[in-house]
């Protein structure tokens, strides 16, 4: 298993894909982070005199810190990047037919699947570190410039950022499960984008509004946000009914999605003939 994991790590880091995705995620987060930092700074300045109608104080957790809320977009908006690296690490093998060499080097297919999942975790962590750094550094400067506390002096912020990294890490593993299940690269990308950008956000919005829809908090995106513990979705959708999951439980729920996808793949297509 160790050899297979080392092989998979080498595969992940030896093409341009990972840093292209990390760069895209970082750039996206940096722009969004700076924009949000300005919005929150202006709101903080105006807060005493007027209510802007964007009421972020109505959550059960009380008023989230503007800095934390800004930093939270790391997990809630950019999780698609570690998810994609995990997914593509599998679908590329089928696309370029390198899966032949992979299964020849390690004929025990369950070992290959486990190795891919394990190897994706450090990759998720590295991408998370890059994305979080790209988000936090400019946003913190904006807060500092506007005289709003940027939270970098508080342990709570750093614990939060640590949980964001955990979120990225687990998402990469979920991606491997998704890739193993779908195998076709184009189909996988379409499904990942459709689900993360449309299907799940809609379900979570409905979950926040409808009675009996509290199960939506077990959806992967919701679980991922619960790992961080703070999320823009929660703040805007005004969820106050369900008690939030602890980050440990949330990580387990998200990991269960990844393991579940991989298990279904293994039970169905993973052991098929490769020709």
């Amino acid at each position, binding site marked *: 298993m160790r050899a297979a994991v080392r092989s998979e790590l080498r*595969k992940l880091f*030896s093409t341009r894909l990972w840093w292209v995705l990390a760069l895209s995620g970082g750039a996206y987060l940096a722009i969004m982070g700076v924009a949000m930092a300005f919005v929150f700074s202006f709101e903080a300045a105006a807060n005493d005199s007027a209510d802007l109608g964007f009421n972020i104080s109505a959550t059960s957790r009380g008023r989230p810190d503007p800095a934390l809320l800004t930093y939270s977009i790391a997990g809630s908006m950019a999780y698609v990047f570690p998810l994609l690296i995990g997914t593509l690490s599998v679908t590329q093998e089928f696309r*370029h*037919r390198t899966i032949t060499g992979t299964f020849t*080097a390690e004929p025990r297919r369950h070992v290959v699947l486990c190795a891919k999942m394990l190897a994706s975790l450090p990759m998720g962590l590295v991408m998370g570190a890059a994305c979080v750094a790209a988000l936090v550094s400019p946003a913190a400067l904006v807060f500092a410039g506007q005289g709003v506390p940027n939270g970098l002096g508080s342990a709570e912020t750093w614990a939060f950022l640590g949980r964001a990294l955990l979120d990225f890490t687990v998402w990469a593993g979920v991606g491997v499960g998704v890739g193993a299940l779908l195998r076709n690269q184009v189909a996988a990308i379409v499904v990942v984008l459709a689900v993360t950008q449309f299907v799940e956000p809609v379900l979570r919005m409905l979950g926040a509004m409808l009675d009996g829809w509290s199960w939506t908090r077990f959806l992967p995106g919701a679980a991922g946000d619960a790992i961080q513990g703070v999320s823009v979705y929660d703040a805007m959708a005004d969820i106050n009914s369900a008690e939030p999951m602890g980050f440990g439980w949330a990580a387990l729920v998200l990991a269960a999605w990844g393991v579940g996808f991989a298990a279904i793949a293994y039970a169905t297509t993973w052991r098929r003939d490769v020709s």
Partner: protein
Amino acid sequence: MIQVRALSKRFGQVNAVIDLSFTARDGRVTAFLGPNGSGKTTTLRAALGLLKPTAGDVLFDGRHYQDIRRPARQIGASLEASSFHPGRTALDHLLTLAPGAAVAEERCREVLDLVGLAGQANRRVGGYSMGMRGRLGIAAALLGDPGTLLLDEPTNGLDPEGISWMRNLIRAMAAQGRTVLISSHLLGEVERTVDDVVIIARGQLVHASPIADLERFGAPTAVVAATDPPALAALVARAGWDAQWGADGSALIRGVTPVGIGQAAFDAGLVLTQLASQKPGLEQAFFRLTEGGGLQ
């Protein structure tokens, strides 16, 4: 030693390989021949555990491929479709295989040097020619210094110099006592490289022997000339022989023994100036054995 034992593989309604058995022995180069679509690649893929056989199995020194730990140290395989990620360099490609073969970067550079790609080690494979990809596939197969080599169409895409290089490499591997099985759809390309031939057509074994014994399967061929060429032509036409005419009026006749030709000429009252038996070509023997045995 590689033993293919009563191997069958069916894809839906198509029987790709039917009850195929043969052995590739140590220290010898075995050619696995057959027209395109005759089941060669299916057999190799089944041997490597990539396909599940419908029946039968393949053993490497008595063991199934799936039961061998670190298979790259015992069996080096390069499949025709052996594909590479275009964005990965040759060295990185080998480094992804290095853990499985339990070798270090030094060995990766060594095999790249061996196949003549040392100068291209850090180039992305996407820019490689067919021949260079073939060489990289061989480098990957040699990485773990295996005792058995399985090479699918190793001369594909190689220039004449490359084919000669490949021939020497394969001979050297067998001389070191390794088992080498190479597949090809062209006997001519491997004729001078191999010790044994295994020929399949339509997924079935049609011939297995040392290459020297293959010649017997060629059609008899004779060169014949007469004092009266038009009369000879009339005889050939009457008899319905398969003849090829030379500029000097002689005919190369296939499918008839010299005795048969001599008798017919005598009966027709022809004076022959030449009647010689010709060694049938290996390629011809191959075509005879596999006639119509390609894609169904």
